[in-house]
């Protein structure tokens, strides 16, 4: 095989039986001592079992109350993550996963997002009369899988995490049995997802073959040794990217997302568009950061030859294509769920800019990953907020198409103003979190000298105005025959307001969040 310049290096000798017997007591002690840092995952695991079991002892019509149980478990897990803190810097379970600020940050992000999605599920009437224990069990299971993704350091672990999160997602997409669109969405999801994981497994095996290790840090380190096999590295990287790219819905692995988003129940679409995507970015970031740390990220000069793969360019091109495809496809959508699906593809493109700009330039500049983390926080609130309004409107009117929003301004001031703010934030205009986040991303690429990518991003922003503003226009500038008010209960109103506050807060006082993100620890081994 010409691609493989394999050399037999002194690998580790296989573990013998005697070793195990000798080391076993120490191993057990090590595992138990690591369990403290693993508490949030354990809480979630217990939660998965609890909601399924407790549901068996609940009458069917009361099954929706399982939402409260799931909510409680997620809240407790959140508390335990926060109590554990963001300054951890150690490996757990023999380097399978790590306990660091970066992982804790993503855990908080995932849990907060789930906390927002659960009430949305409980508000959805199409779930009425169904057994909901399994739904919440699968939902918590999905979050647990994502926990493993965001903290994984070993490739086995994150492959398992991705698959765990994916399988539960397939089932949740098609949870409404008998709903044709849901079933079709789920099938498309499972087919594309399986092929992506197949490609990723192959890519991982190539990386393993090149470096002889499954540990991410060792892989990144090992790639330096085998510099001469650039084409293989590129192929392996792109195959792995198929797996990540599918999670974050990046071009060309985005095909599934509009169909799945449209077919899935709205609260789960919201979950997929934000939480699943955030977890995908966490893995991608950790992987890429390892490459940056070992100097494998950019072309380098070695013995007078330019070697390596120009990853910033590769990711930059993917980023540009992703945002362009997402935005231009969104222009022609009539179904708001589908429109938001394409918009979330575009946002994956914006976020990828941060990955393209990972190599930090000037001293005070913010490296790309900090910009991504900030943008994900803003994106969490603005996109979930938008889906919340879509979900409320769909409940009240039974429609997801744009027509349902005509004249909404006079029918429900709160909902229309809220959706307006979320959309303005998605466009990236001040004074919202979307603006400050996008500025940081663009700043990162400008600092890295990739002005062309910044220009593509701003042109895309202008294109995106057209379809976002169309919704704003429908709500405020056009009048509808139906002028009946949309009734909102007090808790729902409060929920909506609660989503607006962080969006505006991040737009005006984003300094503290930036500082917080800057101080996070990132353990690469």
């Amino acid at each position, binding site marked *: *095989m010409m691609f*493989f310049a*394999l050399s*037999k*290096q002194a*690998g*580790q*000798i*296989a*573990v013998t039986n005697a070793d195990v017997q000798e080391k076993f007591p120490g191993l057990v002690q090590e595992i138990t001592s690591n369990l403290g840092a693993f508490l949030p995952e354990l809480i979630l695991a217990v939660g998965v079992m609890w909601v399924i079991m407790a549901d068996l002892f609940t009458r069917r019509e009361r099954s929706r109350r399982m939402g409260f149980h799931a909510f409680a478990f997620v809240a407790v897990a959140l508390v335990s993550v926060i109590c554990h803190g963001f300054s951890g810097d150690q490996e757990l379970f023999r380097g399978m996963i790590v306990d660091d600020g970066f992982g804790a940050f993503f855990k908080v992000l995932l849990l907060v997002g789930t906390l927002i999605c659960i009430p949305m599920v409980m508000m959805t009437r199409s779930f009425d009369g169904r057994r909901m224990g399994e739904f919440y069990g699968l939902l918590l299971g999905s979050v647990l899988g994502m926990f493993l993704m965001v903290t994984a350091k070993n*490739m*086995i672990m994150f*492959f*398992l995490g991705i*698959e765990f999160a994916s*399988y539960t997602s*397939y*089932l949740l997409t*098609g949870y409404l*049995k*008998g709903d*044709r*669109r849901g*079933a*079709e*969405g*789920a*099938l*498309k999801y*499972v*087919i594309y997802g*399986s*092929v992506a*994981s*197949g*490609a990723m*497994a*192959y890519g*991982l*095996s*190539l990386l*393993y*073959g090149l470096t*002889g*290790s*499954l540990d991410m840090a060792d892989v990144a380190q090992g790639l330096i040794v085998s510099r001469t096999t650039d084409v293989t590295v590129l192929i392996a990287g792109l195959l792995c990217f198929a797996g990540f790219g599918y999670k974050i819905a990046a071009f060309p692995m985005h095909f599934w997302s*509009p*169909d799945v988003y*449209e*077919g899935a129940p709205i609260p789960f679409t919201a979950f997929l568009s934000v939480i699943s995507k955030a977890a995908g970015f966490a893995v991608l970031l950790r992987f890429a950061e390892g490459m940056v740390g070992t100097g494998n990220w950019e072309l380098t000069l070695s013995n007078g030859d330019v070697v390596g793969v120009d990853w910033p360019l590769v990711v930059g091109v993917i980023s540009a294509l992703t945002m362009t495809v997402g935005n231009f496809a969104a222009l*022609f*959508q*009539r*179904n708001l769920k*589908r429109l938001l699906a394409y918009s979330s593809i575009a946002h994956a493109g914006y976020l990828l800019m941060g990955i393209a700009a990972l190599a930090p330039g000037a001293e005070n500049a913010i490296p790309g990953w900090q910009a991504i983390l900030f943008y994900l926080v803003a994106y969490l609130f603005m996109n979930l907020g938008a889906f919340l309004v879509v979900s409320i409107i769909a409940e009240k009117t039974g429609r997801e198409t744009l027509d349902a929003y005509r004249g909404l301004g006079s029918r429900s001031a709160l909902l229309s103003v809220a959706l307006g703010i979320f959309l303005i934030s998605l466009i990236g205009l001040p004074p919202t979190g979307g603006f400050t986040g996008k500025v940081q991303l663009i700043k990162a690429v400008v600092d890295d000298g990739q002005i062309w990518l910044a220009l593509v991003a701003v042109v895309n922003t202008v294109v995106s105005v057209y379809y976002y503003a169309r919704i704003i226009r429908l709500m405020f500038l056009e009048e509808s025959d139906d002028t009946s008010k949309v009734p909102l209960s007090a808790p729902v109103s409060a929920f909506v307001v609660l989503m607006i506050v962080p969006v505006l807060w991040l737009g005006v006082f984003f300094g503290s969040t930036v500082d917080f993100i800057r101080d996070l620890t990132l353990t690469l081994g």
Partner: protein
Amino acid sequence: MGTEAYLIVASLLFLIGASGFLLRRNLLVMFMSIELMLNGAALLFVTFARHWNRMDGQIFVFFIIALAAAEAAVGLSILIAIFRLKHRVNADELSELKG
């Protein structure tokens, strides 16, 4: 037999699976093609584990096998749900969602 021979077989398996996925339209056959891709990856792991004289590659293969089984279970259950609704298992006839 050197490592290269195994690499060629594994690559062929993966490519056959990938082309099967792209060319065939029957959903069941598509799932089988995906299994072939996974098997290609698994064979590669075993080969490299042998090459580097390490265990972790072999462990990965066990996980791949288990995951492939889980995937088949999930995928086929969804496929059955679709079949009940539409009485079709052809990918081209899944056209309710588009745009």
